[in-house]
């Protein structure tokens, strides 16, 4: 199988989708001629022409609003917001319009759009290039929310998202674009070319939305993670020498609750990990669900490890980032409880 970085996998997903379906269009800031600031759309305009792949004005509201109109016409827009930190101007269009269109029109109009955006920190991007706003979307009925953690999934999930009949928020952990990252920022990073999940077929396949994946089987504790945190979880478990079961959620909404509860009922312990700010983060929903569904199996409280409740700082990036050390401490905490 061909090897791909996550960027190449995402590009390939759009390429495959555009080749199969004339209705797929791609636009966003700098995505046309230049191919996107992270190069995710490089070459697509040349291949599919500038009426299917084009630069948009710097208006996230306009990009999403226009995409909604296009989707209601019958297209399948896959648009890019340059950084997840810049999605807020489009928030009203997403929450009040895209998410509710099918419902309020009783299915007369639908909104099969994908909104791609780089998410997460770890690149010294400061407060405006590091945010993880997933929980601001998981509260919105009518949306789906996807966070891939590797090239194979990224491609398969993105194709599934483009083919999905409903709006999908597709968050791409930018720290993973070129290789898995375990949170040890002071150590060299492996490239995707050296990683088993850096392989993906060139052609069409999907990874279904709504299905988690067990990345590591284990019996001592269940670790729930997604995106970059999957690798941090792996590193923390290994370093702590704990036989953790690591679940990569992949889709946050709708959530694969069965896989989660089966695991926690087995292990009796659970650590939830995300980069976003702790309070009202998606970890809150996970902890609430786990204690509700696995209460009688739990031997310790569900512990959350997350970004602190501050804006994402620049200089203190690695103090903020919930790296293997903090995750490891949480593992010990639940194991000792």
């Amino acid at each position: 199988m061909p090897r791909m970085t996550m960027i190449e996998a995402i590009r390939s997903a759009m390429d495959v989708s555009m080749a199969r379906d004339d209705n797929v269009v791609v636009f966003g800031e700098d995505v046309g001629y230049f191919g996107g600031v992270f190069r995710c759309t490089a070459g697509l305009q040349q291949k599919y022409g500038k009426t299917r792949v084009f630069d948009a004005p710097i208006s996230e509201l306009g990009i999403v609003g226009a995409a909604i109109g296009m989707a209601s016409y019958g297209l399948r827009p896959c648009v890019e917001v340059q950084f997840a930190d810049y999605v807020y101007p489009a928030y009203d269009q997403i929450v009040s319009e895209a998410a509710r269109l099918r419902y309020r029109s009783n299915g007369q109009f639908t909104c099969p759009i994908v909104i791609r955006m780089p998410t997460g920190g770890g690149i010294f991007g400061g407060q405006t290039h590091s945010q993880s706003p997933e929980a601001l979307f998981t509260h919105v009925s009518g949306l789906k929310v996807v966070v891939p953690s590797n090239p194979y999934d990224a491609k398969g999930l993105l194709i599934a998202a483009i083919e999905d009949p409903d709006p999908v928020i597709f968050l791409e952990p930018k720290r993973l674009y070129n290789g898995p990252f375990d949170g040890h920022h002071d150590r060299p990073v492996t490239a995707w070319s050296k990683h088993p999940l850096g392989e993906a077929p060139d052609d069409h396949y999907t990874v279904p939305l709504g299905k988690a994946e067990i990345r590591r089987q284990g019996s001592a504790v269940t670790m729930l993670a997604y995106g970059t945190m999957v690798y941090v979880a792996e590193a923390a478990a290994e370093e702590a020498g704990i036989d953790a079961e690591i679940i990569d959620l992949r889709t946050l909404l709708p959530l694969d609750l069965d896989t989660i509860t089966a695991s926690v009922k087995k292990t009796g312990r659970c650590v939830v990990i995300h980069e976003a700010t702790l309070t009202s983060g998606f970890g809150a929903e996970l902890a609430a669900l786990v204690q509700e569904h696995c209460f009688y199996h739990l031997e310790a409280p569900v512990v959350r490890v997350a970004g602190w409740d501050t804006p994402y700082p620049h200089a203190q990036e690695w103090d903020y980032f919930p790296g293997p050390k903090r995750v490891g401490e949480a593992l010990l905490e639940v194991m000792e409880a």
Partner: protein
Amino acid sequence: MAEAERLSLHVPEPEVRPGDTPDFSKVVIPKAGSVARPPVDVDPKEIRDLAYSIIRVLNRDGEAVGPWAGTLTDEELMEGLRHMMTLRAFDARMQTAQRQGKTSFYMQHMGEEAVSCAFRKALQDGDMNFPTYRQAGLLIAGGYPMVDMMNQIYSNEADPLKGRQLPIMYSSKDHGFFSISGNLGTQFIQAVGWAMASAIKQDTKIAAGWIGDGSTAESDFHAALVFASTYRAPVVLNIVNNQWAISTFQGIARGGSGTFAARGLGFGIPALRVDGNDYLAVHAVAKWAVERARRNLGPTLVEYVTYRVGAHSTSDDPSAYRPKTESDVWPLGDPVIRLKNHLIVKGLWSDDRHKQTEAEILDTVIAAQKEAEKHGTLHSGGKPSTRDMFEGVYETMPPHLRRQRQKAGV
């Protein structure tokens, strides 16, 4: 620092408030027929003045005059009158139904009937409107069954939207009527997106966006103009300036620009102002703008100058913020009476015939209402089900919603 050199905040105020004598003498109304009609492929630069004038066809004597006259046949004119009368009758019945507790909420069109009724006749089937809540004329003139509108208003068991949406927030794809959002402005950029899609697919259909004077302040308005201007989207962008946004007069949204149409100038988009109470003028301008879009010449911005005669909604009482008789002195008159007079002048109509038609229309509306009420009203009779509440959030119901539906016992 001397007082004279100190700053102060300017807060615009309407000329009159309750208790004052209503006065529109400062509103400049050009004579009917006096505004030139440029070719549709005119360079927008050449017609900037149209953003500051008012295109009018019907004069005081009820005659159609000037270069914008003549876009409608006699039959079409009579049909237009019937549409406006129907909308007015419909409004009156539904307003009463709300007072009777048959629905939670209603919004009427009184005084603005010409705008949506005439505009619809300039479109073709397949074109798509992105309306606000004050363009039901698009449905009436587009042949959407009144009983379906009522079922939606009553949120009854036959409500095409299954009780999910507020009354009057209609949706009918087949009638070129996009699902109304309760959020102001959002649909304006969506109209542009729809039009871009039509252009991307090299289709022949065009879109129309709708927004109120007050709502032009929303961000979506700007996004719509930017995208429409950049991609030359085949869209007609309509601003219905009915002078009021709930209790707020148009000067708050308009600021120092003189007119709303002028907003288009900074985007190189042709901008026209039209007498919104003149069915013929509305149709002529709509036809012009639709033709521009259809010929791939790009977007047009149209401001309809009209007046909201009624309350904002059934939750509003305008006597708290404007003189009660303000609508009586509105210089552009009443759209129904003006078209009626025109038909009389043309020898096509009479007072008797008008009364008779009024009665016929009322019968039809009442018949529709009876039919609708068989299916229930908001608090009695047939209702959409609790299951309907859980359906349609997604195409396929995800597990968590299925669990919740079970928990709800339905």
